[in-house]
């Protein structure tokens, strides 16, 4: 049943070598191939052996997702946690700024930045830049 329409289509495949005339040719709608779907699946031995086929399955984690109880990475907090921020100023210059508490400061030239633990420039993160 399933292979018959494919065979019909294969026979009607026309190879057009002249691309220009193919583009200008009127679009032809192919003949409709009525495919009859069985309304009820036959209870074959194979189907009995795989009872999950055709059944809807629910995800094991969906309950917690729906309750808002799943902890994503942003929902987890640790004491004395520091935060990193990537600033893509251009392809050439890249910083990774690791933020900590406000009593830590970093000095760049004459500029004093509060709360910044460290700034990593592109030289220190070659692995990332190797992809560019």
């Amino acid at each position, binding site marked *: 049943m399933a292979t018959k329409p494919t065979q019909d289509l294969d026979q009607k495949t026309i190879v057009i070598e002249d691309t220009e005339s193919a583009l200008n040719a009127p679009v032809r709608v192919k003949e409709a191939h009525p495919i009859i779907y069985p309304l009820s699946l036959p209870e074959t031995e194979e189907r009995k052996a795989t009872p999950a086929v055709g059944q*809807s*399955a*629910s*995800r094991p*984690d*969906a*309950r*917690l*997702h*729906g*309750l*808002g*109880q*799943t*902890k*994503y990475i*942003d*929902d987890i907090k640790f004491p004395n946690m520091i935060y990193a921020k990537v600033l893509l100023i251009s392809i050439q210059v890249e910083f990774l700024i690791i933020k900590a508490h406000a009593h830590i400061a970093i000095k760049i030239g004459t500029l004093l930045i509060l709360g910044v633990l460290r700034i990593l420039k592109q030289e220190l993160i070659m692995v990332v830049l190797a992809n560019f």
Partner: protein
Amino acid sequence: MFVELKVNGEKRSADVPPETTLLKFLREHLDLTGAKLGCDVGDCGTCTVIVDGVSVNSCIMLAAKANGSEVTTVEGLANTSDLHPLQKSFEELGALQCGFCGTGMLMSAKQLLDENPDPTDFEIKDALAGNLCRCTGYTKIIEAIKDAAKNMRAA
């Protein structure tokens, strides 16, 4: 700045800096992490909560502006014995895959069903216009909301 809200029927308060958004207030001061931080500019809708019966993007609403109002988050949908019909349908019909958009979707859907118990496909799509989902392709979410609406009307 002292902010006091009624969150999921319970009075909660905290002293926060004036620039604190409602999302930050809920997540960091009240430890309600159900509302997610996605884009932080009001595009993605993962932070959707219901403030005085209206669904809002909590990432662009200041906590101070919500002072004194009644806020419902996803944690307030279910009670100890039963899931909300929306949660049940979302779970059964596979509308939650990674689940990150789910909490926002549920809140938008809840506000829709509170106002309109029998929404059409178009009305559901319109209500979810502010919520982005990258997993499901929305079809299952729309099906789940219709299913929940049916169950809620029957109940």
